[in-house]
C-alpha cells in the first residue's frame, strides 16, 4: 500500500470510530470500547507499517512525502489538506498511537461501570483524530484547525464528569486559557501568511532559506506569536494555570492528554516550525525596546521559568495527580527550554520518552486511586508496596526514568536538554536545580504514598487492579526503560537536520550506547546525576522515616505555603480578570443603558412601533378608502410626471 494511503487511513480511523460510536453503538458500552480500541490499535499497526514501508525513521531533513488535496482557495490564501510524512511526524505517529493504545486498553478497566462509558470512548477517539491531525498537518492552517479540535476534545474529556462543578470549571478554564494562546497563534499564522503568502511548512522553510530577511521586521514578532500557541497548549508560564486543574478529568485522560500527547503538541509545533525561530532577531519599530532579544530567547526563558516554578509547586502538593501534573508542567518547561536553546531534537526526544514514563506514572497513580476508591491524598495512603506490587514496581520504574537515573530513558533525554543548556550558564544552573527538585518530589511521592505503613483504612484494604489495567503499565514500563536505546534521538536529529546527525551512527554496541552521554557531554551528565543524587538524599532524610505529617512546612515556613498555594497565580489572575471585567462591565453597562438602550433601542423601537401602528390606521378594511387611495396615488404620480 502507498504510504500516503496509509497516512490517510491512520487519520481517518479514529474519526470513523468517534462517529460510529456516537451514531450507532452509543447504547452498547462494551461494543463502543471495542470499536475505539480496535481503531487505535489499527492506527498503531498502520503507523508501524507506514514507518517500515516508507524509509523508516531515518529520513534526512528537508525530505518528506506530502499527500494533499486542495481544500480551500480564498482571496490569495490557498490551503491544502495535506499530510506530511518525515521522521519528525513518523516518530510522533508511533508515540501517539502507541501510548494512545495503552491508555485505551487501560481505560476499559478504569472506566468500567461508568454510566457514560460509550461517550468516554467516543471523546477519546475524537481526541486521537485531532492529535494525529496535528502530527500529520503539512501547513499552519490545517494544524490550527486540528489544534482547536484538540482543544475541543480536551474540553469534553476534562469535563467528562460534568455533573461535578470542579470538573466543569476546570474544562472551562482549560478551554479559555488555551484560547488566549490560540489567539496569538492565529495572529502569528496571519503575520507569516501576510509576509510570505503561504502557510505550507515546506514552502515557508524554502522561502526563508532563500531569503532570511523575508519576514522583515516581523521575524521575531511572528515567532513569539506562534509560540503563544505552544504556551497555551503546552501550559507554559504564564498560561500554565489550566493544567493542574485539568486533573479533574478521569485519570486515563490525564495520562493521555495532559501528560503524553496534547500538551506535547506545543513542543511538536515548535519543532515543526523551528525554521521560523532561527531567524535573526528583528522587531517592528514600536517594539524597539526588545531589539537584540530573539524569539528563541523568549522561548528558552519561558521554558526555564516554567520548569523551575512548576517543580517548586510540586514539592508541596498532597494530591497524587496534582504532583504529577506539576511535574508535567516542569518537564514541558524543559522541552520548551531545549527548543529555545536551538536544540529542538533534544526537546522532541524528551517529549517522546516523557510520553512513555509520564503516561506510566499517571496510569500507576490511576491504579492507586482505583484501588483506594478514588482517594487522591498521598497522606492517606502508604504501605501499598505489598498490596499493589505491579503498580508499585512499574511506578518506581517511571519515577526513576523521570528522575533521570541511567540507564532509564529519561536519563538520556534529560541529558540532551542539559547539554543543550550548557551554553547558557544561568539556564543550565536552573535546569540542574529543577533536576534535583524533580527527584525530591518524586521520591517524596513514592516514599509517602507507596511505602511505609498504611495511614488510612482504605489503604490497608487495597487490592491490585484488574489485569486489563496492569498490562499497559508493564508495556509502558518496558518502554520507559529502553526508549533511550531505540535511536529516537538520531532519527530526530537527522529529521531536523541538526549538526552531528551524520557522524553518530550508534554502532558502538549496547554498552557504548549506555555510557555515550558521559563521553560527549560529561559536564551535563555528571552534574545531572549529582543533582539527582542530592534530590534523593534530601527526600530520604525527610521522608525515609515515613512521617505521618509533612515535616517540610515547619522547616521552610512561609515559602512552603507559597509553594502549596501555587504562588497565588490563580488568585492573581482572578483578581486581574475581576478588575478588568468589572471596569469593562461598568463601561458596557453605561453604554448599554444610556446609548444603546436609551437612544437607539427605546428611541428607534418606539418610533418604529408608533409608525407601524399609525400605518395600520390607513388599512381600515374599507374598500372605498382603498380605491380612493389607489386612485389618488395614481393622480399624484400623473401630476408629478406630466406637469
Amino acid at each position, binding site marked *: 500500500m502507498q504510504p500516503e494511503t496509509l497516512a490517510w487511513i491512520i487519520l481517518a480511523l479514529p474519526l470513523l470510530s468517534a462517529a460510529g460510536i456516537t451514531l450507532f453503538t452509543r447504547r452498547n458500552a462494551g461494543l463502543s470500547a471495542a470499536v475505539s480500541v480496535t481503531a487505535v490499535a489499527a492506527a498503531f499497526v498502520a503507523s508501524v507499517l507506514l514507518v517500515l514501508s516508507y524509509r523508516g525513521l531515518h529520513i534526512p531533513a528537508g525530505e518528506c512525502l506530502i499527500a494533499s488535496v486542495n481544500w480551500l482557495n480564498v482571496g490569495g490564501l490557498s490551503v491544502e489538506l495535506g499530510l506530511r510524512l518525515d521522521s519528525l511526524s513518523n516518530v510522533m505517529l508511533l508515540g501517539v498511537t502507541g501510548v494512545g493504545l495503552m491508555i485505551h486498553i487501560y481505560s476499559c478497566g478504569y472506566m468500567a461501570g461508568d454510566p457514560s462509558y460509550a461517550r468516554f470512548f467516543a471523546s477519546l477517539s475524537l481526541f486521537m483524530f485531532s492529535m494525529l491531525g496535528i502530527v500529520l498537518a503539512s501547513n499552519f492552517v490545517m494544524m490550527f484547525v486540528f489544534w482547536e479540535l484538540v482543544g475541543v476534545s480536551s474540553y469534553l474529556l476534562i469535563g467528562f464528569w460534568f455533573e461535578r462543578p470542579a470538573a466543569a470549571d476546570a474544562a472551562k478554564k482549560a478551554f479559555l486559557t488555551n484560547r488566549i494562546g490560540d489567539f496569538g497563534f492565529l495572529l502569528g499564522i496571519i503575520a507569516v501568511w501576510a509576509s510570505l503568502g503561504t502557510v505550507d511548512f515546506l514552502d515557508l522553510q524554502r522561502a526563508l532559506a532563500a531569503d532570511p530577511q523575508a519576514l522583515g521586521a516581523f521575524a521575531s514578532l511572528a515567532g513569539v506569536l506562534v509560540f503563544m500557541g505552544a504556551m497555551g497548549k503546552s501550559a507554559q508560564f504564564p498560561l500554565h494555570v489550566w493544567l493542574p486543574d485539568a486533573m479533574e478529568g478521569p485519570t486515563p485522560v490525564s495520562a493521555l492528554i495532559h501528560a503524553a500527547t496534547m500538551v506535547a503538541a506545543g513542543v511538536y509545533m515548535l519543532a515543526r516550525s523551528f525554521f521560523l525561530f532561527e531567524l535573526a532577531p528583528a522587531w517592528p519599530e514600536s517594539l524597539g525596546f526588545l531589539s537584540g532579544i530573539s524569539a528563541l530567547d523568549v522561548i528558552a526563558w519561558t521554558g526555564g521559568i516554567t520548569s523551575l516554578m512548576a517543580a517548586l509547586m510540586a514539592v508541596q502538593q498532597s494530591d497524587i495527580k496534582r504532583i504529577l501534573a506539576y511535574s508535567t508542567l516542569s518537564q514541558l518547561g524543559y522541552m520548551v527550554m531545549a527548543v529555545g536553546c536551538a536544540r529542538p531534537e533534544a526537546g522532541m526526544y524528551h517529549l517522546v520518552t516523557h510520553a512513555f514514563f509520564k503516561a506510566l506514572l499517571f496510569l500507576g497513580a490511576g491504579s492507586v486511586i482505583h484501588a483506594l476508591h478514588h482517594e487522591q491524598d498521598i497522606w492517606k495512603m502508604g504501605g501499598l508496596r505489598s498490596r499493589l506490587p505491579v503498580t508499585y514496581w512499574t511506578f518506581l520504574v517511571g519515577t526513576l526514568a523521570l528522575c533521570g537515573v541511567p540507564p532509564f530513558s529519561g536519563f538520556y533525554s534529560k541529558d540532551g536538554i542539559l547539554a543543550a543548556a550548557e551554553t547558557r550558564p544561568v539556564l543550565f544552573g536552573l535546569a540542574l536545580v529543577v533536576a534535583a527538585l524533580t527527584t525530591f518530589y518524586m521520591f517524596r511521592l513514592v516514599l509517602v504514598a507507596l511505602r511505609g505503613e498504611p495511614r488510612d483504612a482504605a489503604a490497608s484494604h487495597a487490592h491490585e487492579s484488574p489485569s486489563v489495567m496492569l498490562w499497559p503499565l508493564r508495556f509502558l514500563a518496558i518502554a520507559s526503560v529502553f526508549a533511550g536505546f531505540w535511536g529516537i534521538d538520531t532519527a530526530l536529529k537527522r529529521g531536523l537536520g541538526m549538526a552531528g546527525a551524520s557522524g553518530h551512527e550508534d554502532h558502538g554496541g549496547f554498552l557504548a550506547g549506555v555510557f555515550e552521554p558521559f563521553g560527549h557531554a560529561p559536564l551535563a551528565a555528571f552534574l545531572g546525576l549529582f543533582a539527582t543524587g542530592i534530590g534523593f538524599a534530601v527526600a530520604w532524610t525527610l521522608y525515609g522515616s515515613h512521617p505521618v505529617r509533612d515535616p517540610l512546612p515547619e522547616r521552610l515556613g512561609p515559602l512552603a505555603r507559597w509553594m502549596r498555594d501555587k504562588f497565588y497565580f490563580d488568585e492573581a489572575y482572578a483578581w486581574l480578570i475581576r478588575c478588568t471585567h468589572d471596569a469593562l462591565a461598568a463601561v458596557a453597562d453605561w453604554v448599554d443603558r444610556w446609548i444603546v438602550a436609551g437612544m437607539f433601542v427605546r428611541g428607534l423601537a418606539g418610533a418604529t412601533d408608533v409608525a407601524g401602528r399609525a400605518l395600520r390606521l390607513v*388599512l381600515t378594511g374599507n374598500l372605498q378608502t382603498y380605491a380612493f387611495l*389607489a386612485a389618488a396615488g*395614481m393622480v399624484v404620480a400623473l401630476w408629478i410626471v*406630466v406637469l
Partner: protein
Amino acid sequence: MNLWLLGPEVVLVLLGLSLLMMDGVVPTARRRLLGHASAAVVAVLCLYALSGHAGLPEPGYAFGRMFVLDGLAVFFKALFLCAGVFVLLLAADMGDRLGSGVTEYFVLTLFALAGMLLAASANNFAVMYVALELITVAFYVLTSYQRSRVASLEAGVKYLILGALSSAFMVYGIALCFGASGTMQFDELAAKSAELAENRLFQVGMLLVLGGLAFKVAVFPFQIWAPDVYEGSPAPTTAFLAIGSKAAGVVLLVRLLGGVIPELGLKWEMLLMVVAAVSILFGSLSAIPQRSLKRLMGYSSIANGGFVVLGLAAMSKAGSAAVLFYLAGYLFTVLTAFLVVAVVVERLGTDDFSALAGLHQRSPLLAGALAISMVSLAGVPPLVGFFGKFLVLKALVEQGTALPSYFVLGGIAIIGVVISFWYYFGVVRAIYWNQGPEETSPVVVPPVIRMALVGGVLGILFLGLFPGSVWDAAVAAVALLKF
C-alpha cells in the same frame, strides 16, 4: 406559424379542460389525485422550460410577432411553472377544506398559470392585457373560493373591485399609448421609443399602464389590497398571488421598462425610487404590529415588491438580473412559508402567532421550514434571501456613482431590511421560545407536503450556497434588454 413555441400554454389549457371533463368521471374521494397528476404534468413542463432555455439561440416569434419566446420569457416561465407545482400540491392537500368542487380549483389555477406564461411572452399590449385579465379573472374566483367563509368572500370582493380599477387604468393607458403611437406592438414601440418618450400623451398612457402593473406587483400606490386579500384567501391562492401574480407584473415591467422604452424609465427614475422606498418602508413598518401570519406575509409581499422595483430603478442590466434572481429566491422562500401556513391553518384552525407556540415540539419539520423561510426573507446569509437583497443593493450602489440619490435609496432599503428583522424574527421567536399551550400533540404532515417542504428548504439553501447557476441564467435572460 410557430405553434410549438406556445407548447406549455397549450398543454396547460388542454390539461385544464380535460380535468373539467374528468371531474364527472372521477369519484369525489379520489379527486385529490387529479391535483397530484396535474402537478406532475406542470413539473414536466417546468423541466421542459428549463431545458428549453439552453436550446434557444434566437428569440422566437408567433402570431405576427405578438408573442415572443426569448430568454426573459423562458426564465419566467420556468419560475411560474415551478410555483404552479407547489400551489397544485398544496391545493390538493387542502382539497377538503376548499368547500366547493376541488377540481375547479385546479382548473382555475392551471388557467391562471397559462395566463402567466402568456404574460411572460407578451409582445403586444393586447396580448399583455388579455394575459393579465386571464390571471386576474381566475384569481377573482380563487380568492373567494371558500364561499362559506366571510373573510374569503370579502377578500374576493376587494380583489375584484380594486383589480377592476387597476384594469381600467391599464386599458385606458393602452388606449392613450395606441393613440399616441399608432401601434400596440412592443418592438415597433421600441423602434421609435426616443421620440415617443417626449410625447406627453404617450407618457400619460404609459404611466397608467405601469400603474396597472403596480397593482399586480402590489407596490405603492396600489399595494393597499394585499394584506386584506392575503389574509382572507385560501392559503394556496395567497401563495400563488404572492409569487405568481407578482412575477407576472414584474416580467411585464422588466419588458416595458428595459426592452421597450428605457428612455421613459430613465426619465422616471425618481418616481421608481419613491415607489420602491415607500413600498419597502410601508410594508416593513405596517408588518410590525401584525399577529396573523397570512397578513404578515401580505405586508412582507409589499416590502418585497418594493425591493423588486428597487432593482428596476437601478435601470441597468445588473439591476434587472438581480430582480430575476430575487424572484427566484422569493419563489422558494414564500412557497415554503405558505406550505407551513396552510398546514398550520388547517390543523390548528388559526394562523395567529399564538398557534405557533410550541410548534417546534409538535412538528420540528414545520417549525424548521418556517423558521428558515423567515430567516431567508429577513436576508440572513447563507440563505437565498440574502443574495437577492445583496445583488439588488449591489446593482443600486453601482449606479450611485452617476446619481447620488441611489445611495439614499440604498440606505432606505437597508433600514427596511433592519426593520423587517423585527417581525420575521418575531415569527421565529413565536415558534421556538413562546410558551406553548397545553396542547402538545404532534402535527401530522402529509407525505406530499413533506416532500414539497423539503424541496422548498433545499431550494432556499441551494440558491443561497450556490447562487451561480441561477444568477448566470438571470444574466443571460436580461441580455437582450436595451440598457
